[in-house]
C-alpha cells in the first residue's frame, strides 16, 4: 500500500510541475469559467443544497459527539492517532515555501499588468502615508485597522529604497503583504495539522486546496485586512489547541492566544467578532468531549483568556465607547456611532452604515469571481466524512475544531441567506455574504480529512 502512495505522489508531482510550468508560461484555459456560467443561473438552488447538506452533516456530527460520550461515559481526551511519519520542520518549511511560491506566480502575473488592485487599496495607501508622516501613534488612535496598516507601512518602508516613490512601491508592498498573509496561514495550518497526526502529502494537498479556495480572497487584490485576520486566526487556533489540550498550562500559551486574537481585532473588527464566537464554539465542543464543564471551569481558561483579551483591547474599547472624536478600532460599532458618523446629517434616516456599505462593493465583485465548482463538491464530501468519523467515534482534534468552527460559519451564512431570500426582499446582500463566508470555513482541516479519506 505504501508503494501505491509513493507512486501516486510521484505521478502527481510530475503532472503538477508540468501544469505549473505550462500556466506560468502563459497558457490560458477557461474550463472553470465555462462550468461556472453553466451552473450560475441555478446558483441559488445549488447554494441551498450546499448549505442544507452541510448543516445536516454538522447537526448529525454534534449529535454523534454527544451520544458517543454519553454512551461510553468516557471523560478523557480522545487519543490522537500517531502519524506513521511525522514531517520534520525542514520538510514543512520546504513544502510551505513551494506552496507560497506556487500561488505567488499567478498573483504576480496579474500585478504586472495592473497597478494597485481594486478600490479599497486607496484607503490602505492613505493610512500608509499617514503612518509615514504622523507615526504609529496616529495610526493606533485614528485607524480602525491599525495592525494591517502598520504591517503594510513596514513593508512599504522596506521596499521604497528599491522602487522609490512610485505606484510600483504600492504594488510591491501590497503584494508582499498578501503573500506574507498566505505564508502565515500555510505555516500555522501545517503546524496544527502535524500536531493532529497528518502526513506530509496530506498536509501539502490540503493546503494546496485551501490556497486555491482562498486565492479568490487575496486575488481580488484589496482584501488585505480580511485575509490577514483569517491567516492570524489559524495562528490563534494553534495556541488555543495548546491551551485546551493542557488547561493547567503556564501563562505563555493563553498570552499568545490573546495577543494573536487582539491583533485580529486590530486588523478586522467584524472578523474578530466571528472568530471570538468560533473560539467559544470550539471551547464548548472540547468541553463536551472532555467530560463536562467542571474541569474546564476549574482551570479558569475562559476567564484567563477574557482578562488578557480585555487588557490588550481595553483602551480601544474605552475610546470607542466614550470619545466621539475617536475613529479607530471598534469606533464603527461601539458607542454613539450615529454621533460620530452622522453628526451633521440629522435628517439622514437609515443612512448606510459606512463599513457595511464599503464592504458591499467588495462583495459585489466576489459574487462574480467564485467559480471553482469542484471545491464546493469537495467541501460537501469533507463534511460527510467528518460526520462519518464522529459516528464511528474516530475523529481527530482537527475535526472537532472543524465542527465547532464550521457550525458558527455555516449557521451565520444560512441565517443571512434565509434572511436575504425571505425577509430581505432582495435589498439585503445576504447571498453575497453567504458565499463569502465559505472562505471563513476551516478549509485546511476539512480538506485534510478529505484527502486522508481518499488516500485510504
Amino acid at each position, binding site marked *: 500500500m505504501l508503494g501505491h502512495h509513493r507512486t*501516486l505522489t510521484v505521478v502527481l508531482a510530475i503532472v503538477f510541475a508540468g501544469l505549473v510550468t505550462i500556466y506560468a508560461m502563459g497558457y490560458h484555459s477557461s474550463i472553470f469559467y465555462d462550468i461556472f456560467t453553466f451552473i450560475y443561473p441555478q446558483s441559488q438552488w445549488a447554494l441551498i443544497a450546499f448549505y442544507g447538506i452541510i448543516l445536516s452533516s454538522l447537526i448529525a456530527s454534534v449529535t454523534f459527539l454527544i451520544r458517543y460520550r454519553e454512551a461510553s461515559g468516557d471523560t478523557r481526551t480522545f487519543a490522537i492517532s500517531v502519524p506513521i511519519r511525522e514531517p520534520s520542520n525542514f520538510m514543512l518549511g520546504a513544502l510551505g515555501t513551494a506552496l507560497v511560491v506556487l500561488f505567488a506566480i499567478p498573483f504576480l502575473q496579474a500585478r504586472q499588468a495592473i*497597478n494597485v488592485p481594486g478600490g479599497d487599496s*486607496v484607503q490602505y495607501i492613505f493610512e500608509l*502615508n499617514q503612518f509615514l508622516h504622523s507615526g504609529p501613534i496616529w495610526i493606533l488612535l485614528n485607524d480602525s485597522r491599525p495592525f494591517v496598516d502598520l504591517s503594510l507601512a513596514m513593508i512599504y518602508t522596506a521596499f521604497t529604497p528599491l522602487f522609490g516613490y512610485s505606484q510600483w512601491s504600492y504594488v510591491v508592498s501590497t503584494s508582499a503583504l498578501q503573500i506574507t498573509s498566505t505564508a502565515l496561514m500555510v505555516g500555522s495550518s501545517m503546524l496544527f495539522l502535524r500536531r493532529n497526526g497528518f502526513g506530509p502529502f496530506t498536509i501539502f494537498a490540503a493546503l494546496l486546496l485551501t490556497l*486555491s479556495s482562498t486565492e479568490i480572497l487575496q486575488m481580488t487584490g484589496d482584501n488585505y485586512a480580511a485575509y490577514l485576520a483569517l491567516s492570524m486566526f489559524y495562528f490563534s487556533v494553534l495556541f488555543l489547541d495548546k491551551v485546551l489540550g493542557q488547561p493547567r498550562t503556564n501563562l505563555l500559551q493563553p498570552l499568545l492566544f490573546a495577543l494573536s486574537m487582539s491583533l485580529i481585532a486590530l486588523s478586522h473588527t467584524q472578523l474578530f467578532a466571528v472568530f471570538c464566537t468560533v473560539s467559544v464554539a470550539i471551547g464548548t465542543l472540547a468541553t463536551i468531549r472532555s467530560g463536562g464543564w467542571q474541569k474546564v471551569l476549574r482551570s479558569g481558561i475562559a476567564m484567563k483568556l477574557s482578562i488578557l483579551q480585555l487588557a490588550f483591547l481595553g483602551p480601544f474599547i474605552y475610546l470607542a465607547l466614550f470619545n466621539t*472624536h475617536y475613529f479607530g478600532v471598534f469606533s464603527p460599532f461601539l458607542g454613539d456611532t450615529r454621533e460620530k458618523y452622522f453628526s451633521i446629517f440629522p435628517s439622514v434616516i437609515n443612512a448606510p452604515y459606512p463599513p457595511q456599505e464599503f464592504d458591499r462593493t467588495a462583495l459585489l465583485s466576489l459574487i462574480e469571481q467564485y467559480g471553482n465548482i469542484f471545491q464546493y463538491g469537495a467541501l460537501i464530501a469533507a463534511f460527510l466524512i467528518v460526520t462519518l468519523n464522529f459516528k464511528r467515534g474516530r475523529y481527530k482534534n482537527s475535526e472537532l475544531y472543524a465542527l465547532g468552527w464550521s457550525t458558527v460559519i455555516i449557521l451565520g451564512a444560512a441565517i443571512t441567506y434565509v434572511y436575504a431570500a425571505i425577509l430581505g426582499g432582495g435589498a439585503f446582500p445576504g447571498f453575497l455574504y453567504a458565499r463569502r463566508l465559505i472562505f471563513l470555513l476551516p478549509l485546511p482541516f476539512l480538506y485534510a480529512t478529505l484527502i486522508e479519506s481518499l488516500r485510504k
Partner: protein
Amino acid sequence: MIPIIKKRSVYVLRRTSLVLLILSAVAFPFEFRRVYESSPVEPTQQYLDELSRIRNIFGYGNQSIVIFVRAEQLALNSRLTEWARAITGIPVYLGSSPYYYLANKIETQLLDDPTYIGQTNQLHVSGIIDKPIVISELLANPSPLDILDAAPISSGLYLLALSHDSAVQRLNLIDQISSGAPLQVMNSSILVENLNVSSWSLYLGTGGFNNATVSSSNGFVSVEVSQGPYFVRLFHVFTPPISLSSFVMALVRVYSNISKQVFLQLSSQDNPLIQGGTTAQFADFQFVLKNGWQYLVLPMNAPAVGSNEFSVSSVYQIIFRLDRDNVIDHVVLAGVYGIA
C-alpha cells in the same frame, strides 16, 4: 469476485477524485487570474500627477486648507476623493460647488452618496470648516463663478478664501442659476447686470427662412417652432457695441418645453453683410435645453469655439440658433445678464 471488483472500483474512484481535485486546485488560480481579475479603481496618471503637485505646493497633511473635488461620475468611479486624500493627506470636500463648503451648507442632492456623507462629516467632526479651498481645474472642473474670487496659485490651480457671508451670497446666486429663477439684485460683492436684451429679430436670410412665430410681451420673447430643415435664427444687435470684459460670465435666461439643441454666438464684427448672418469675429457656445426655466452660461474666458478676431470688449450682436429637429417647440427668451 464481485466484492473485489467493487473494492477496486472504489479505490480507482477515490484516486481519480484525488488527482482531479489536486489538478483543479493548480489550474484554477491561473485561470481565475485571466477571467475574473477585477480592474484597478484609480484615476489616470494625469490625476495622480496633479495630486502630487498639490501635495508639493501645500505640503502633505496640511490641515489649514481643503481640496475641492467635484462630485461627478468620473470622480465617483475612480474614487478620486479618496485618492486625493491618500496622496496629499489634505482634507477633501466632495460636492457640486466649493461654496457649499465655504457656506457650511449641506448638499441635499448628495445625501445618497456615502463618500459625501463620510467626508463631510469627517470635516465637521474634526473642526475643519471655514478653511480656504483649493480648486484644481483637473479635479474640480470649475465654473467661472467658482474661481471668481480665487487667487491663482499655479497653472490651473486656485485658492479660494471667502467669508461665510460672502459664500452664502455666492451660493444664493448659484441656486438661482440652477433653478432658473429670475436673478435678484445682488449687493456689491456680486454684480448682476441686466444687459437689456428684450428684443430679438428673426433672421430671414439664406438658411433662416422658417416657420417660426416670434412674439414679444413684457420683455419676454416667445418663439413657436415647427418642424423644418434649418435652425431658427434670432439675433440682437447692441448699439453701440458693449464690452463684456468686466464680466466673468454672461447668462441667458430661457424657458423650453422640451429638450433641444441650441447654439449661442457672440459677434464682435460691427459690419456684417447681413445682421444675424455669418460673422468672421465670433465665439460659439453650445447647449442642450431641458424642460423648464434655465440659464445658459457663457463663460467669457472659455468659448467652446471661436475666431481669433473675436473681442470680448466689443460685442456687436448675440445670435441664438434653435434646432428644429422634427419636434414642435416653444421657447421663451427672458433676458441676458452679465455677472461680475
